[in-house]
């Protein structure tokens, strides 16, 4: 019994975060279709940034190329779900096994995630060996390659023209399930022996090596896990959009997701979840402003916020802390103590990553 209690308590952070997302999912549809759609995109972004965090956050190596896995998942998922009839006219030169494939969303998720994971495993052979910045840049090169292939392999992707006819299976509940699933997978990974070793290497590569951590191997594992997750998100996102082009998985998205992770905080799962939520509110506000200022305000505003966070709170808003009930309770008590004239030590009250 006490063992079970211990296990459940250990999952406190993803459970609390899931409850917050669940609340959003319940409330958003009542505010109209436009808000519901924004909530869906936000939930997908949570899943996406959590996937990004499983590499960038845990290894400490920021990556500029993980959206390539998203593109792979999106195209793979779309090609096996677009109705066979539609594929005949849209993509007449498709190889037979794809032309005749029409599977359900769960199967498409397995295919898209699996393909992205396979791709990640292959590129990890050379890339995981690279030191920090070189790894970031190599991943950026991978993104460019994937984009160019998607934009020019006309018989498979329709090139720069939009791929359409993708069934729109992604409801707000599918998006929620994706986000929650990603959170639990990544939390389990973070707490596992693999995650612990990867985090140790993030803190200090030399001591990690001296302590027996094979950094290349741990980064390779992390690349495959993050690749699989982001591939899955790609499938789900494509089934939300229904119509997409290679540009949907390129520089804009890369910048957006990195901004979300940096703002939320790269060193905690909580940061990877609240980052996209805050950015969703921020971009909504800025988009309203664009009716006055003209286009571009959204990106400029987001970039400025990211710079401000980097300057004033380099570890992001969560600063490496995870959301925990004990934290909330302590903060509440601290707040009452403050009102009674005692000094605040709220930061100390936050619990550390475990």
């Amino acid at each position, binding site marked *: 019994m006490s063992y079970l209690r211990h296990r459940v308590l250990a999952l406190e952070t993803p459970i609390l975060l899931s409850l917050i997302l669940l609340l959003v999912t319940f409330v958003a549809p009542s505010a109209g279709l436009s808000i519901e759609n924004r909530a869906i995109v936000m939930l997908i972004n949570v899943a996406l940034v959590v996937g990004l965090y499983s590499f960038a956050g845990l290894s400490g190596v920021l990556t500029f190329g993980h959206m390539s896995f998203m593109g792979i998942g999106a195209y793979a998922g779309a090609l096996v779900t677009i109705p066979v009839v539609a594929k005949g006219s849209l993509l007449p030169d498709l190889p037979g096994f794809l032309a005749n494939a029409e599977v359900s969303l769960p199967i498409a998720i397995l295919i898209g995630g699996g393909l992205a994971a396979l791709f990640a495993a292959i590129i990890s052979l050379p890339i995981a060996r690279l030191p920090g910045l070189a790894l970031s840049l190599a991943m950026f090169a991978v993104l460019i390659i994937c984009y160019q292939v998607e934009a020019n392999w006309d018989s498979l992707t329709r090139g720069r023209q939009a791929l359409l006819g993708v069934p729109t299976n992604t409801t707000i509940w599918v998006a929620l399930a994706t986000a929650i699933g990603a959170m639990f997978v990544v939390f389990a990974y973070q*707490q*596992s*022996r693999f995650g*612990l*070793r990867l*985090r*140790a290497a993030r*803190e*200090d590569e*030399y*001591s*990690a*090596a*001296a*302590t*027996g*951590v*094979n*950094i290349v191997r741990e980064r390779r594992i992390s690349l495959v896990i993050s690749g699989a997750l982001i591939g899955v998100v790609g499938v789900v996102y494509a089934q939300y959009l229904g119509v997409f082009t290679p540009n949907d998985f390129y520089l804009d998205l890369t910048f957006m997701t990195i901004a979300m992770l940096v703002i939320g905080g790269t*060193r905690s799962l909580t940061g990877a979840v609240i980052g996209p939520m805050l950015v969703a509110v921020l971009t909504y506000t800025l988009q309203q402003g664009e009716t006055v200022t003209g286009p571009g305000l959204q990106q400029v505003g987001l970039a400025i916020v990211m710079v401000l966070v980097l300057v004033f709170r380099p570890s992001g808003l969560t600063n*490496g802390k995870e959301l925990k009930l004990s934290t909330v309770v302590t903060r509440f008590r601290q707040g009452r103590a403050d009102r009674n004239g005692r000094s605040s030590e709220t930061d100390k009250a936050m619990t*550390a*990553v*475990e």
Partner: protein
Amino acid sequence: MNEDSFSARGICVHFDGVKAVDGVDLEIRRGEILGLVGPNGAGKTTLVNALTGFEKPTYGECSIGDRDVLGKPPHAMASVGVARTFQAGRLFNHLTVLENIEVAALKRYRLRRHAEQWAIEVVESLKLGAIRDRLAGELSHGEARTVELGRAIALKPEFLLLDEPAAGLNESESDRLVGVIAEIPRQGGCGVLIIEHDMKVIMRLCDRIHVLDHGKSLAEGTPEEIRGNAAVTEAYLGGTVMPDA
């Protein structure tokens, strides 16, 4: 060579013409403490780097028993039982004390559950229980050095190389740490190499002392022999007499 020793022969580490380590023979025997001393820039840390896989020796041989271990990467050296600490004291700052030690414990126990148990044992034996859930980056210098030693011990090494473990500690902290180090060979027969500037510490701890100067071995022997060695006194202490043990 002895089955139970970590031995290096003719180790050279040259950087663009600078001979940081130049033809050093060294043997760490199980169950003993070997002191590695010498003036600043003598090549002590470079030698430890070469023995632990952090620096590839230009020439030389390195083996444990009959097993050649030269050129293995650092994490593989940890796998064959060679652990080390760093002069600068490098901990995983955003991990807790217990997690720091658990990373090492994972090298001996596959599952986190078991690794955690062993890490807790190490924490308790070093009397770090009170700070085990603190972040390593928030520790005092003395606590941090003890945790670093604990992390190396948690690897259950057969050979442990300590690079100035007591640097920056006050006298009582240093005494405590020296006490811990003195116990290491008695538990499981680990062989220890220690770099240390404080000759009192060296004389008290070591079974044998190896003196390095300008990258070359100057002398090796028991503390008594080294104390009586005129060349060592000249090179290392500039003519002053070494303190008694």
